């Protein structure tokens, strides 16, 4: 419920004083437009009210029906839902490949599959989980939730956002199609040279890996840009930097890490493709290249990558812990600074993946120190969350259960990471199942468990219905037991000498029992995901209907309807507190003055959140979809011939011309 501004609000946000007079024509700080004569025909949201305002805005901001309408949409919620659904589809595909792997490894010298198929399978498992699920799921939630949480109508650069989704979809489809056709990559998700080089990886398999990287990284950087600009410029008035929700901070830091880390892997994959396709010698030692250069480039990206997967999850955990403790976050500043520190420090750890390559020991020991040091900001976050729970009144519903699972599992994984940070210990456990156990503990504990909690938490917002709480509890215990049964034995297997990426093992090694146990655990864990899917589908159809704020949470997205209308908010809220809905329980202050008939958003300043400009945002357009198709043609063609870069850029140039063709917009007509 919204209300007019009272003098109390004016103290909180002095810049809005002019609005209280009910002046027509707009907002303070607007430069050229404040003096421009306002057309009397232009309808603004302070002139209309109630259901009529909602209906008119929905018409302006809505997505057209039909296939063309669906492909042209720039509504961040539609794109966000697609993003989330696609990422979860890839989670399932990656999980299926993992189940197949575990079936093969359940028995020594198992003949379920041969080495060729197994190598493709573990490669696909790795790339699906890391590139097609791990990074996109965080971005997907950002695309959906960040505009709602900062109180604006749409994400920044909405057409770029749509383009990013299509490019991601095409890249993922390309590599899975390749796998189905037996041309899937089989060199591991990291594709070390010289194994993935031209001599030892014949055919096009490794090229599909390299080009999938290009697709997903273009998509990732595009979404990161949109998120950063949304957070910096489109916040609701009054949302100063220290009132930004922790989830939004996490996504902001995450987006910066994405922008700085992804170019390294694109370089690695592009140089690999050049070596394979045009005969360059980047990684050919005989002609002056170096196989270790690849590892440096890859891991410079690869380490921040796991933080890209982890950071959004810290946002989910923060949101759930705050809501389910019934208390505002303890140590907000410390949490934000920890996020930023983690983002920075994550770039200084990469050599810990290369401790056994024979690099100089003095350099390696620096990375031991930095790898251990990153435990400090992570630890600060854990302690602050526990403190929030301590001083709060925990509500034991499914989201909090999964966050408990996160604490149990992620902290264990982080501590095994401290073991791996030590160079001498790493020489024993590197490239064994100990590492496999470690990273599944930090990634599943640190991303998947919070993700499931986040889905239970935000499901009412996405669909308007609650998920089944009873099924949620079953789901949690099945997942928790299944996960630990699968991955805890792997710590022991690694110490017992079992290396990674082996399609089978000899019976006399004595690894059979633990492997069988882990495989049984894996089937339990997979069953928990089937239960999850069932819960999602049946709750979407028949779950109890939810209002706008079923959890009585404090952040802005819970002020919108469930599911949100296309315009998100009828009027832009004014923020006076870190938890706006808890501070203004009866009604939320709003600012009025945006157009009803045209798509307009309020631009505010970066640090203070002072209202600044009214910005016309783009209408739905089919060009992002066409540009994505042109991009796909360019990328796939360039796997087969370098001339594709020349000929393929023609359709792309045409698509970009259509996209950026200047349209007269309403601002010009004043």
């Amino acid at each position, binding site marked *: 419920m919204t209300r007019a501004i009272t003098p109390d609000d004016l103290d909180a946000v002095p810049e809005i004083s002019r609005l209280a007079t009910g002046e027509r024509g707009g907002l303070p700080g607007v430069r050229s437009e404040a003096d421009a004569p306002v057309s009397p025909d232009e309808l603004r949201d302070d002139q209309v009210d109630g259901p009529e305002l909602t209906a008119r805005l929905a018409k302006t901001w809505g997505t057209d029906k039909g296939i063309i309408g669906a492909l042209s949409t720039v509504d961040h919620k539609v794109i966000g839902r697609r993003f989330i659904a696609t990422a979860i589809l890839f989670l399932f595909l990656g999980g299926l490949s993992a189940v197949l792997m575990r079936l093969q490894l359940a028995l020594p010298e198992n003949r379920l599959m041969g080495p060729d198929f197994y190598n493709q399978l573990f490669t696909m498992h790795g790339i699906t989980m890391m590139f097609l699920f791990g990074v996109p799921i965080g971005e997907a939630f950002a695309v959906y939730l960040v505009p709602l949480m900062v109180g604006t109508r749409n994400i920044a650069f909405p057409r770029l956002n749509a383009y990013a989704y299509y490019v991601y979809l095409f890249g993922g489809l390309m590599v899975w199609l390749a796998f189905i056709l037996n041309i899937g990559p089989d060199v591991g998700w990291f594709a070390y040279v010289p194994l993935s080089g031209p001599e030892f990886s014949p055919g096009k398999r490794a090229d599909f890996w390299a080009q999938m990287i290009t697709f997903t990284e273009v998509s990732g950087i595009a979404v990161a840009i949109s998120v950063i600009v949304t957070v910096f410029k489109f916040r609701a008035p009054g949302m100063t930097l220290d009132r930004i929700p922790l989830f939004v901070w996490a996504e902001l830091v995450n987006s910066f890490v994405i922008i700085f880390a992804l170019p390294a892997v694109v370089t690695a994959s592009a140089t690999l493709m050049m070596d394979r396709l045009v005969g360059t010698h980047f990684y050919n*030692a005989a002609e002056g290249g170096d196989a270790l250069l690849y590892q440096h480039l890859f891991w410079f990206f690869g380490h921040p990558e796991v933080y890209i997967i982890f950071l959004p999850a810290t946002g989910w955990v923060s949101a759930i812990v705050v809501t389910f403790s019934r208390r505002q976050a303890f140590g907000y500043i410390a949490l934000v600074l920890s996020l930023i520190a983690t983002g920075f420090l994550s770039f200084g750890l990469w050599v810990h993946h290369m401790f056994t390559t024979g690099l100089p020991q003095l350099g390696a020991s620096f990375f031991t120190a930095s790898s251990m040091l990153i435990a400090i900001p992570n630890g600060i976050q854990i302690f602050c969350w526990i403190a929030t729970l301590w001083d709060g009144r925990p509500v034991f519903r499914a989201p909090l259960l999964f966050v408990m699972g996160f604490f149990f599992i992620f902290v264990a994984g982080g501590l095994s990471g401290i073991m791996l940070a030590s160079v001498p210990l790493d*020489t024993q456990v590197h490239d064994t199942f100990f590492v496999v156990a470690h990273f599944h503990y930090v990634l599943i504990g640190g991303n998947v468990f919070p993700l499931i909690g986040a889905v239970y938490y935000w499901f009412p917002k996405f669909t308007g219905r609650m998920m089944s709480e009873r099924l949620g509890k079953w789901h949690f215990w099945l997942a928790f037991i299944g996960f630990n049964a699968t991955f805890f034995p792997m710590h022991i297997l690694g110490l017992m000498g079992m290396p990674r990426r082996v399609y089978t093992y000899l019976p006399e090694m004595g690894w059979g029992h633990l492997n069988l146990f882990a495989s049984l655990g894996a089937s339990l864990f997979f069953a928990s995901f089937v239960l999850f899917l069932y819960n999602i589908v049946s709750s979407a159809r028949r779950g109890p209907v939810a209002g706008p704020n079923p959890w009585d949470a404090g952040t802005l997205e819970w002020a919108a309807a469930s599911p949100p209308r296309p315009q998100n908010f009828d009027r832009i809220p004014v923020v006076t507190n870190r938890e706006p809905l808890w501070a203004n329980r009866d009604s939320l202050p709003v600012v009025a003055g945006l157009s009803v008939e045209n798509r307009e958003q309020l631009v505010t300043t970066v640090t203070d959140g002072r209202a600044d400009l009214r910005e016309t945002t783009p209408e739905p357009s089919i060009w992002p979809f066409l540009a994505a198709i042109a991009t796909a043609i360019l990328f796939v063609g360039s796997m087969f011939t370098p001339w594709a870069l020349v000929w393929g850029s023609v359709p792309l140039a045409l698509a970009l011309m259509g996209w950026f063709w200047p349209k007269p917009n309403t601002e010009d007509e004043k």
Partner: protein
Amino acid sequence: MRRAAPFLLLAVLPLAGCQGWQSALDAQGPAARTLADMFWIFLAVLGAVWGLTMIALLLSLRRRRPADADPLATNPETERRMIVTTSIAVGLTLVTVIALTGLSYAAQKVLFARKDGALTLLVTGEQWWWKITYEDSQPNRVFTTANEIHIPVGEPVLIKLEASDVIHAFWVPSLTGKMDLIPGRQNQIQIQADRPGLYRGQCAEFCGLQHAHMGLFVIAETKEEFERWRDRQVSSATPPSDSHRQRGMEIFLSKPCVMCHQVRGTDAGGKVAPDLTHVGSRRTIAAGTLETTRGNLAAWILDPHGIKPGVNMPAVKLEPDEVQPLADYLEGLK
């Protein structure tokens, strides 16, 4: 607590890891012992950290606020206490991390110290076997073998590591940590065994189709036994004494074997596959996959891709009456 039940079950399993011929926790050399000790210290310290965190988490779940409390309300006294507690926790974490880093540095120095040893080996990683060359100051004492290393007990042995095709990793967990074999550069590792025994190793860097079956053995023996072994390995193959083995040798020399394999003392001079001069003296064939018996030798020659699909050894067509003599001959190359 319910949550502890699965953990209790799993607590029994770790005991399985303490023994084994390829176990990092079953240390048989000074380096591995340092590493195993380090592991237990780290495990104890970090396990305690985890336990304390979990206790704090469980204790935090008690409901300390009344049901109708304002979520934004904070008690300054509680805030202050929590700030102090979390700061202490962060400080303790920092101290722990610094201590563990220091411990790591100390172990690193020990692990990578190079002692002067008499014996130097050159191990070249191939897809998917280990080519081992024993170096010596006298060129006529240099010899090449495959997949099995013998070392004298109690002495440090320096191994130079090279790769001919892709990246591999040399890892014998009972003796020391691993080191990569990277084409284009030479790495080094030092191993030392305390007791005579058999220690298994395995390639620990994904190297293609048969990475899973690229094992090796390190056999530590007394100095006298080692010297005897080395003298035998340096010598060429003794010509077969009986006609059965003689026929086997003729079959060997008339088949594709000679294109890739070498048996010193005969005309077979191929350099790209494992040296077979003393293959019968090795405990295993096919890089630690099969025991050296006549049956396994025959099976390996007739159907290598049934045992290790994708391996570089081709299937060799033998007439039925050629199988036994050939297997006899190879087994007799001791």
